[in-house]
């Protein structure tokens, strides 16, 4: 359904993403992990057209989307959340979610209906009249997700939605993502540092390190991969010096 082929992104002399390829199957939950600075968020920005890629191509269904503008890519049915949350700060929670629903619906009535359902799902309804910038981090993360969901994407990219959440909230979020995947047939690709969430949700994982693909496979395959173990457990320091 979605594929990234030999994508390269350079910033000056630095190669942020180095010939990365992977495919996401319809209906799956695809995880991307890797240490800070591995190029995960850059990859998302390349996919969404926030950055122009230097080489390679990105396809969604049978369409090449690399080179398209962000809003065009979004309109095709690809949603995303931002690691650093970007709420419409001065608007209410409801208006934030509604904004996500508006581009796909011709009337406010329909859009509002979608927004309500999503706020209910994420338990944001009690906060619907709060101004977004006054919310605590946990709720801002939820709002970020709610707004992306309101676009009713086929494919959703989540950039560390678990970050900064309490264990209890992480559990809730895992359930929400599972629900979206199973009941709403949403294909999901998530960057995540919270490994318990990755283990619980992802059917395939891509491990990035310093812009390069280190490993890819099922959870078992990846966790058994010696290089990944090296990089993740105790190998980190060695790695830094190697660079």
């Amino acid at each position: 359904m979605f594929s990234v082929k030999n994508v390269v992104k350079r910033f000056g002399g630095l190669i942020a993403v180095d010939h990365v390829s992977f495919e996401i199957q319809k209906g799956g939950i695809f995880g991307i992990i890797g240490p800070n600075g591995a190029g995960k968020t850059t990859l998302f920005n390349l996919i969404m057209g926030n950055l122009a890629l230097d080489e390679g191509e990105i396809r969604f269904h049978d369409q090449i989307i690399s080179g398209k503008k962000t809003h065009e890519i979004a309109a095709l049915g690809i949603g995303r959340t931002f690691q650093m949350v970007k709420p419409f700060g001065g608007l209410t929670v409801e208006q934030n979610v509604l904004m996500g629903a508006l581009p796909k619906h011709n009337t406010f009535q329909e859009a509002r209906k979608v927004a309500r359902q999503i706020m209910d799902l994420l338990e944001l309804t009690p906060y619907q009249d709060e101004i977004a910038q006054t919310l605590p981090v946990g709720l801002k993360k939820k709002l970020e997700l709610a707004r992306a969901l309101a676009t009713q994407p086929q494919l959703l990219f989540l950039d560390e939605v678990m970050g900064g959440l309490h264990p209890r909230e992480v559990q809730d979020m895992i359930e929400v993502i599972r629900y979206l995947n199973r009941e709403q047939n949403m294909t999901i690709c998530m960057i995540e540092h919270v490994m318990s969430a990755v283990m619980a949700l992802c059917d395939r994982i891509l491990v990035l390190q310093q812009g390069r693909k280190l490993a890819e496979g099922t959870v078992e395959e990846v966790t058994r991969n010696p290089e990944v173990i090296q990089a993740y457990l105790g190998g980190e320091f060695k790695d830094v010096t190697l660079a």
Partner: protein
Amino acid sequence: MMQRLVNSKGKRNGLVGILLLLVLPLLFQDQAFILDTMILMALWGFVACSWNIVGGYGGLLSLGHAAFFGIGAYTSTILFVDYWVSPWIGMIVGALLAGLFGLFIGIVTLRLHGPFFSLCTIAVTEVLMIIAINWQEVTHGSAGIPVPYRPGFINMVFDNRVTYFYLALGLLAIVYFLSLWLNRSHFGYYLVGLRENEQAALALGINGVKVRLIAMTISSALTAVGGTFYAQYVGIVEPFHEFSFHLSAQIALMAIIGGIGTAGGPIFGAILITLLGTLLRATLGGAHGGIQALVYGLLLVIVVLFIPQGIVPWFKQVVAKRKKGVVHV
């Protein structure tokens, strides 16, 4: 149910207000001073609302709306004086020209945000002023152009000020309803979304470039209409006024003091500032013209520092809090 109640009450108040506005000038028919103030209130309300589309809803803080105002004033006046084209047609031509110019400015400033956008709009206006002063064959140079006093509908020159008032009120109504529409339309929401967070808005599938350019075009074209009206009413266009930074700042500050990004705020701001100007001029006399501007400069500082949302939204919040408080007690 609540919604409907509020709405019908709002509508009734609106209707009463409109009726009052229609009758009011008839009461002051002979008092040129009061009528003059009312006309200017409506005109500046109209222009401030036009600015508000880009500056308030869109968050692009233009400090160059005098450029569009001036294009409107100059286009209709030059066409009228040199080619005997009716200012009504001149007004439309001016709006088209200013709209195109606004579109152009919008395109070249697409990457600019915050103070950089403001700076660019200032510079563009300065360039127009220099052109207006130096391109004498067309603009008549630094002396400006007087609009000949030949009353008649076709010439958009009236011997009765009440007509001007109704005209300005009509313009104000148009832009007010446009603002109300923005509050509840896809386009208005997108504009606000782009203001609040551009990247997030784009990721939702909102076409930022298109929305921004449409807003620039509409806002510029409307501002030009205000320019034509002003030229016809005052009877002269002058480069040092029409293209001045002072005018740009005044347009923006009315909207900001009243409440940016709201339909009624800029109108209130225009009424307040115009009234303040008139009152101060009346009490202090013409010799101290600077005092009114001094006062509204300070007022602007106080408003943006302490009630940056503007007076109208602030007042609403205070009232809402009061009401809440009463219920609790």
